[in-house]
């Protein structure tokens, strides 16, 4: 059984069916790209995998290392080793990055990290992402630019060290320099910890830097085609239209 397994997932929101039978398997060490037009259900899938309480699962299951986590709360999933980098990270006023991340690391590991050790870890990861040290003392995402928010998500990924990470459009809203730094960061984390990644992208920009093992195309709540990296190039050239007829 794969580390993360999604089986025949049907999801609705306010009576509207968004995901219409999604199947997906991701193992540690693999990079899967998930592409699809706006509104096809990419973010919905990422939220449901992470345990967002507002979506209704009509049918199907999510397994993490053989364990059915379909009903599990988000925090429990995080502690098992799932991570989601948000397409639109939220601003949380008054909570500094450093304090928040320390609380999160403690929750993730169910132990208390030594303050100095944590500071070292945070400094190291911030340096990897070319982030100014001052970020640690800023309030979570408050007043961050688009690129800074996405970098901060990858910083959280680096510090929390999950098993499987879903990265929802880490490339959107960033300038070219940030995109490079983010991509390099992802590659490095992947290399160091051998995590599995579901890389959601709308523009494919990030696929120049982060090479997927597999590519899946999501259209109207269904994965209509899966293939290797060449599928992404095909989409880039011809657009989603050719596949829509298949949907």
């Amino acid at each position, binding site marked *: 059984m794969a580390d993360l397994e999604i089986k025949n997932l049907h999801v609705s929101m306010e009576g509207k069916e968004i995901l219409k039978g999604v199947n997906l398997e991701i193992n540690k060490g693999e990079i899967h790209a998930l592409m699809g037009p706006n509104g096809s259900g990419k973010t919905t899938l990422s939220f449901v995998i992470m345990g967002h309480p507002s979506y209704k699962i009509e049918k199907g299951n999510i397994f993490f290392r053989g364990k059915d986590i379909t009903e599990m709360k988000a925090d429990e999933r995080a502690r098992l080793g799932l991570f989601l980098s948000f397409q639109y990270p939220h601003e*949380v*006023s008054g909570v500094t990055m450093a304090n928040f991340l320390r609380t999160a690391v403690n929750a993730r590991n169910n132990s208390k990290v030594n303050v100095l050790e944590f500071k070292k870890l945070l400094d190291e990861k911030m340096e990897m992402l070319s982030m100014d040290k001052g970020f640690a003392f800023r309030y979570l995402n408050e007043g961050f630019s688009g690129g800074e928010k996405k970098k901060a998500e990858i910083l959280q990924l680096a510090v*929390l060290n999950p098993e499987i990470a879903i990265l929802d459009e880490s490339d959107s809203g960033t300038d070219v320099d940030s995109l490079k730094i983010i991509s390099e960061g992802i590659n490095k984390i992947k290399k160091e910890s051998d995590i599995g990644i579901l890389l959601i992208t709308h523009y494919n920009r990030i696929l120049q830097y982060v090479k997927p093992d597999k590519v899946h195309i999501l259209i109207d709540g269904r994965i209509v085609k899966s293939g290797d990296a060449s599928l992404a190039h095909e989409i880039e050239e011809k657009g989603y239209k050719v596949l829509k007829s298949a949907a």
Partner: protein
Amino acid sequence: MELINENELNNETLNVLYSDEPNWLKEHRTNSLSMFKELQMPEFKYGLSIILNPRDFNLDINEFISSLKQPIDIEIKNKEKIEVISFKENYGKVKEYLNRLVKYNENKFTSFHNAFFNNGLFIRIPENTEVNLPLIINKKINQKYSFEYVVIVAEPFSKIKIIENASSELKEIFRSKIVEVFIDQSAKITYMDIQDFNDKAYSFNIKKADVKRDSEIKWIDCVFGSHLTKAETISELNAEGANVQNFGVFFGNSNEQFDIFTSAIHNAPRTFSNMLIKGVLDNKSKAVYQGLIHITKDAPFSNGYQKEDTLLLSENAEVDPIPKLLIDNNNVRCTHGATIGEIDKEKLFYLMSRGLSEKQAKEEFVKGFFNPVVDQIKEEKIQDNLKKIIEEKLRL
């Protein structure tokens, strides 16, 4: 409904308690007592929805007398460079200040207070004295009744931070406090007031400052406990360049009822006021917050800002924010606003996706919410202490 059963209180009570005081003070107490009997109990009714319910506070005369005879337990730290005395040590010194800002006949509680106050503290910061370590006043109120009077005189160019911590091990207490602050030119005073009583306590608290030329009062009011708190913080900006920074937090998590009023009265040109009050209400706690900035016709080129934010953590918690601006002068700049919010579910999911339990995530929000006020406290130890009170209350 009667909050205090007042029939048993009379001049004889005063005699028993205060016979050895100077005549002017005895007379002041007698006048205050008759005013107390005359005045009506205010109604704790606000707007359409909120009625605060003072339970009957059954006054037992013997208990009243015995608790007033026994002064509260006060610990004072870092008073080396300033004068800190109890009223008893020098009534003469106190006389010219007493009742100048908060009058005995303002309302039933001020008259009650003036008739019976039994703890008086006089603090004088001499001219040109800048005190770096904050003056710490720790009060343990372990008697059922306590009436505390604090007079602070800041002479020109003086500077100090005063931090008063009040707590009680008794459940049912009646605590009244009046603070009068006189700030002479170019002096800077910070007064931080922390109240963390049990949920059956009554707390009546009035603080008023007379702020002179180029001087500043910074209030940091922290209201954490009680069955009913009525707290007023008033700053009179009486000379050019006077400035008030009025910060406050309140936090109820059971049945607390808070009636909070902050006001800045601009009586002179180029005066400045800034108010920021942050409240969190959980379970059945309630609050009425009234903020007033009054810019009189004598106060051109003045600025006034006020903001009140409340975070409601339960469906049964209630708040009624009433921000007010009264402007009698055109050459001024003022803004005001109030927000009432709940914890955003999407943000909660965001924090939980990082491994924080729902409770932990909520705690982070509340701490973050209070932070703009908590950050005003620069002394690490005092800030930590405040954070600890908040965290302990969050765990309940």
